[in-house]
Structure formats: C-alpha cells, structure tokens
C-alpha cells in the first residue's frame, strides 16, 4: 500500500517527472498573472469609498493567502520528513521557507502601502498585523535553523519541529480579525459565504489567487529541484544530468 508513497519520495523520480510539468505550469502561471493583473488593475471598477487605492488587493490578498497556505506545505512536509524520513519531504520543507518568507514580506509591505491612504497609518500593532509579522519570523527561523547545523539530519529535525510548533499561528492569523478588535477589516472571501465584493471586482481577484497558487507551485518545484541537485550531488544520476546539460 505504501509503495507509491515511497516512490514519490524518491528525489530522482521527482526531478525527472517535475521536469516535464515545468513548461506547462510556467505557461499557465504567466497567463493567469498577466490576465489577472491587467483585468484587476486596468479594467475592474474602482471602489466607491477607497477609489483606486483598493486595487492593491490584487497583490495583497493572493500573497497573504499563499503566505498562510505555504506554511502548511512547509509544516506538513516537515512532519512527513520526521515520520517517514523521506528525503524529498525535507527538501520541500527547506525550499518552502524562503518562498513563504518572501510572500509574507510582500503581504506586509503591500498592506502597509495600502494602510497609509485608507487607515491613515503604515503600521499598527493589531492582532492581524502582529501575527503576520510573527509568521515572517517563523519562516526566517526555519531558514536560520537550516543553516545552523553541520548535520543535515539535525537541521531537518529542528526545522520540522519549529514548523510544527509554528503551525498554531496560522488559524490565529486567519481568525484574528474575528476574535479581537483590530484595525484590519474582516475577511472579504470566506469559504462558507459569498464574497462581500462586487463580482466585477471579485473575478480578477480569483484569477490572481489561482495564478499565485500556480506561481507558488512553480517556484517551490524549482527550489526543490535545485535542492535535489545540491543534496544528491555525489550520486551518479546527478552527474549524468549535469554532463547532459553541458553537452
């Protein structure tokens, strides 16, 4: 029963298979992001109260979504690495950390830029913004742990435990605007209800969110592939890949 699972865990199998997906995934990502950006920034109507400044939502919300979802990817990969000692899972965990940190940073910066014209301030220490800053530090903590051990196994174990402990922050970020009084408004897009946004504005946002998911998958695969080559550099199949590329 577990056989497919173990084959999935083979770095060599993943490297060869993912190579076939990359052009497709790259093309779809590029298309979705271009369509979403032009539609959202150029053609969606402006907001009655906020005017054009609301358009930063087309970057802010997708980046925040993936910053949160990406943490689950990192933590679950860490758990799989801990339990099954799967090499590929450890590499995915390591590759997800800088990507998640970058997306969290984008979410925080676009949020600050959006906050100035609407709220009247770049930054406020409310529950949503503070917990998002904690998320950035968690990602940076995993990155730091990866580099602070000479043994790869020890680094993987420590980062996986930190990822798992930090997972508790994700529902806190998500629910912070409902649990406490915050300056940040509650969620526009919910899984259980219709979005509180006009369809003309919501459709390009949806395209951007799907586009960001594809972008995340693309960059995660690229990061993981380079990590595979690095960690398996002594194996003969990697030497063959490198020799083939040189020819």
């Amino acid at each position, binding site marked *: 029963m577990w056989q497919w699972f173990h084959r999935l865990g083979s770095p060599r199998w993943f490297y060869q298979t993912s190579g076939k997906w990359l052009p497709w995934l790259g093309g779809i990502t590029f298309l979705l992001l271009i369509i979403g950006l032009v539609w959202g920034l150029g053609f969606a*109507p*402006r*907001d*009655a*109260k*906020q005017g054009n400044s*609301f358009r930063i*939502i087309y970057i802010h919300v997708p980046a925040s979504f993936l910053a949160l979802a990406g943490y689950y990817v990192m933590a679950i990969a860490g*758990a799989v690495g*801990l*339990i*099954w000692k799967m090499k590929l899972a450890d590499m995915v965990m390591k590759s997800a950390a800088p990507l998640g940190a970058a997306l969290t940073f984008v979410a925080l910066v676009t949020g600050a830029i959006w906050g100035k*014209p*609407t*709220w*009247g*301030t770049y930054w*406020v*220490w*409310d*529950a949503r913004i503070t917990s998002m800053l904690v998320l950035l530090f968690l990602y940076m903590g995993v990155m730091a742990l990866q580099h602070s051990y000479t043994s790869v196994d020890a680094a993987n174990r420590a980062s996986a*435990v930190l990822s*798992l*402990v*930090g*997972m*508790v*922050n994700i529902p*806190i970020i998500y629910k912070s605007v409902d*649990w*406490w*009084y*915050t*300056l940040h*408004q*509650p*969620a*526009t897009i919910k899984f259980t209800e219709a979005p*509180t*946004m*006009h369809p*003309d*504005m919501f459709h390009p946002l949806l395209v951007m969110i799907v586009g960001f998911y594809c972008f995340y998958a693309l960059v995660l695969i690229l990061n993981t592939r380079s990590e595979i080559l690095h960690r398996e550099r002594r194996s003969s199949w990697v030497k063959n890949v490198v020799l083939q590329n040189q020819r």
Partner: protein
Amino acid sequence: MMNPIRRQRLFLVIFIVVAASLAVGLMTYALRDNINLFYPPSDIAAGEAPPGVRIRAGGMVVDGSVERASDSLFVRFLVTDGEAEVEVHYTGILPDLFATGEAAVVTGELNEQGVFMASEVLAKHDENYTPPEVADAMNAAHERAQQSVDES
C-alpha cells in the same frame, strides 16, 4: 499497516502540534484583553478603560455628530458601538476615509470629564467593495425606501 517506529513518530508529531496549540491557546486566552487594539465605547462608559493613560478607542462615528472649528483643525465627534457613546476631541488632519457611519480608531487619553482627547485618528474601512455606480444606485434605492416609509 504502519511500522511501529513510524507510528511512534506520528504520535510525537501529533503531540507537538496539540501541545503547542494548547500552550498558545491558553496564552492568548489569558492575554485576550491586551490583544484587542482598542476599547469599545461601552467598556469606556463602564469605567473599564483607565483614565490618564494612552489608550485607543474605536467605534462607529455617529451621524451628524462631527463638528469642525472654523478657525483651526479642531474637530469633535461621537463614536458608538450601539450601546454607549464617547465624545472625541482631536486637532489635526483626518484620514480621507474618515466619515460618519464609518468606523474609526482613535489614540489618546480620557480626561476627568470622560472626553477622549485624541492625538491620532485612524479610519477603519469595512470588507465590502462596490463600484461607485452600484453604490450610488444602492444609496438611491435606500433613500426611496426611506421616503416611502416616512410618507406612509
């Protein structure tokens, strides 16, 4: 069937997640009042907010309560949470989105009279996004409904 060592490690992972959630859950529960960004007007009216200390208050700006001085940037308004109202005094520039019927968060101190002397006013916008034409149409429909209620 999972092998026993892996099952043991799986339980360890579950234990880490549950223990961390419990610890953080208890911590945030204990600190729940400190995590709130601002006091709602009903807490201030009930005397739960300390006077003479820098705090934040937040609520909806009451319709028709905004009074501006003609010779300075002084402005006076009421914020409400539906139960109580707090009077806010502020001298300075208000954010663009500050409006009656919208929420605002003010930073400052309560004086002895229970007036909130604000040094900063932030506008809190809601999670609804509407194109201008749709918003105008909705307002017009709302006014028509209001008129027919008044007439009858």
